[in-house]
């Protein structure tokens, strides 16, 4: 018994010794960069393939990818790890978490500073304006590296259109046309003429950007933490009232929060569906009908509409290890080198063509064009053209920079649900979003006072 205990203790000691740094061997070992991401399969595997390619391209750094559940879980895990002084070097953060990251102070290492210190140059001027702008500070400095980006588009079922006597190759372009098409589809006996995924992102955020209308003051929060919600404007109220009326009439079907409605289009249930451009590959895989991709509809009587849509997706943030900092220059250099690799147009174009995310650079767009990708995949260029529509972004179409926006997005979905249940009209729903959203913004402002 005693001997066994001694043996176990010796083994334990040996294991401990193995953990201790060995200066001589450390020279030859590559520097490890921990990288947490939130992409499930198959996208996660495709991302990890890019990481493997980077590791194979040079011997000094080794990026170690690790899947941490969805975006929200990844964000929470990174925050908890930071508090425990064990944060990863690099974390993939969804676009709604951007406001939280911007206010994180010394927890994050801004990308512009990281690149300057490491002597790495990335030409952000070549990035699509709505993509780079979403992740820039108010003064235009790049805070994180944009990576997988999508936007919202409209898909329509051409077989359904034929059955309803509509031209299958002429998708509705305005909301007025959507309404007429939906009526005809319903009259032809189709159960779900129109649905939407991501109700808050598509019907509130994208609609506001398309019509150049603010979601919040101070340029949607880019100007500081004091922003206030402004979604109870005439356009949004009108749009909500339309959706509520259409739902009652059976023209519009509410499919649930976040991505829940994604399933309703590929299975042939809904005729017109608005959702992430990234759903394209799923429709190709599962859809047993003819379909097309179009830009999101707009109200033709609103001056200035339509403008560019805004993005969804995620960017990469460099993190300090914990509240006391704790990273050396070599580790930062490794992160910067990885960023340089990711920003190459060839890498980006390959990612775009394999996954259906939009290219983040014009140069990558050009590569995909040159390789004939859009001839082979008609409609795949629609999201990019929609993002580039109208040239430079305005302060209402740059994106959203509100603290606690994850919570506000849920509030929008909750109030929309209450409206669709018949408990309130569009004005009351949007007023409630403003009231509850402002509470979140004030709390965030108070907790993040410098």
């Amino acid at each position, binding site marked *: 018994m005693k001997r066994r205990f001694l043996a176990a203790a010796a083994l334990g000691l040996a294991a401990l010794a193995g953990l201790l740094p060995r200066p001589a061997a450390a020279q030859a070992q590559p520097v490890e960069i921990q990288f947490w991401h939130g992409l499930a399969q198959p996208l996660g595997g495709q991302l990890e393939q890019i990481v493997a390619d980077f590791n194979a391209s040079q011997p000094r750094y080794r990026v170690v990818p690790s899947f941490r559940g969805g975006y929200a879980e990844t964000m929470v895990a990174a*925050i908890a790890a*930071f508090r425990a002084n064990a944060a990863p070097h690099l974390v993939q953060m969804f676009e709604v978490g951007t406001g939280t990251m911007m206010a994180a*102070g010394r927890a994050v290492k801004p990308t512009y500073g990281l690149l300057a210190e490491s002597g790495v140059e990335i030409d952000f001027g070549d990035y699509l304006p709505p993509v780079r702008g979403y992740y820039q500070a108010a003064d235009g400095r790049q805070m994180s590296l944009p990576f997988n980006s999508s936007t919202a588009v409209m898909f329509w079922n051409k077989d359904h259109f034929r059955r309803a006597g509509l031209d299958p190759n002429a998708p509705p372009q305005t909301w007025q046309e959507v309404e007429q098409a939906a009526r005809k589809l319903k009259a032809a006996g189709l159960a779900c003429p129109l649905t939407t995924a991501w109700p808050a992102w598509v019907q509130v955020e994208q609609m506001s950007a398309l019509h150049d209308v603010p979601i919040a003051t101070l340029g949607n929060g880019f100007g500081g933490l004091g922003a206030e919600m402004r979604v109870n404007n005439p356009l949004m109220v009108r749009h909500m009232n339309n959706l509520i009326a259409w739902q009652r009439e059976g023209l519009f079907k509410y499919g649930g929060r976040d991505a829940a409605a994604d399933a309703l289009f590929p*299975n042939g249930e809904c005729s017109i569906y608005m959702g992430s451009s990234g759903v394209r590959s799923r429709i190709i895989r599962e859809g047993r009908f003819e379909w097309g991709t179009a830009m999101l509809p707009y109200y033709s009587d609103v001056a200035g509409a339509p403008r560019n849509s805004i993005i969804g997706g995620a960017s990469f943030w460099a993190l300090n290890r914990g*509240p006391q900092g704790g990273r050396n220059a070599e580790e930062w250099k490794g992160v910067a080198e990885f960023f340089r690799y990711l920003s190459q147009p060839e890498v980006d174009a390959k990612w775009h063509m394999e996954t259906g995310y939009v290219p983040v650079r014009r140069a990558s767009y050009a590569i995909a064009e040159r390789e004939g990708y859009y001839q082979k995949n008609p409609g795949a260029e629609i999201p990019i053209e929609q993002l580039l529509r109208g040239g430079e972004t305005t302060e209402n179409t740059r994106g959203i920079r509100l603290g*606690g926006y994850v919570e506000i997005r849920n509030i929008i979905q909750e109030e929309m649900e*209450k409206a*669709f249940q018949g408990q309130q009209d569009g004005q009351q729903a949007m007023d409630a979003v403003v009231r509850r959203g402002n509470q979140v913004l004030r709390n965030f402002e108070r*907790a*993040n006072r410098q």
Partner: protein
Amino acid sequence: MRKKVIFKGVALPLLLLAPQLAITCVFFLWPAGAAIWQSVLQQDAWGLRTEFVGLRNFEEVLVDPAWREAAWNTLVFSAAVATSAMAVALFLAVQADKSIRGANLYKTLLIWPYAVAPAVAAVLWLFLFHPSIGLIGRALNQAGILWDYKLNGGQAMLLVIIASAWKQVSYNFIFFLAGLQSIPRSVLEAAAIDGARPTRRFWTVVFPLLSPTTFFLLVVNLVYAFFDTFGVIHALTGGGPGKATETLIYKVYVEGVQNTNLGSSAAQSVILMVLVIAMTVVQFRFIERRVHY
């Protein structure tokens, strides 16, 4: 008539208690203490800026209409889950206690759902009741009953109650069955000879003799409905539609994990802890008196 064992010295009893005390400290006292401390702080998500705010977090929680709504949901939900899970389990246990062919098979099958993880259970129910892909959900809609738990708060509540109660029936079943089997045959036979019909025998003899089991299960079921139903709600409705199925424990999760608002989340969990302590005290002081041992 109590027998007391007297230990000589302090070392041995302390040593014997040590494992339990250590577990209590590490898994209860320490986290509970941390929650109480966090509940009087205001902190950003990253823990870089901390400010002592006294009871402000509690004030804000208690005046928040959303919190009161969640408290009401919890009340409805817990009462419904506990009563339905216990009633169904008692009925099944009484049936399985009879001398019927294949009794053991029924017993085994009835115990199975307990082994199913909450999230998996939720997915099973989702595949039954989803309005467009669920078997029962589609049948309901085709029969002309408008079924859409994603938009109808009452239906959503009904669904999470059914799914949560279903999972707990097995547990209750085992205890009720054991309780029934420990009732002496002679008592039942005596009642039968006196001419009591089965229903009468159940309510006047069996049910009172089962009361210790029922009482124990009531406490366990309420605690289950309060704390262990997170997985079912999360996977089925996510607290929606609106906030129709957001219970107090779910709200603690939303506030702390999704919204990274730790002060408010900690205050809510402290309030929840106080509520459950109070509830258990009330149960032991007032209901236990009516229990026949």
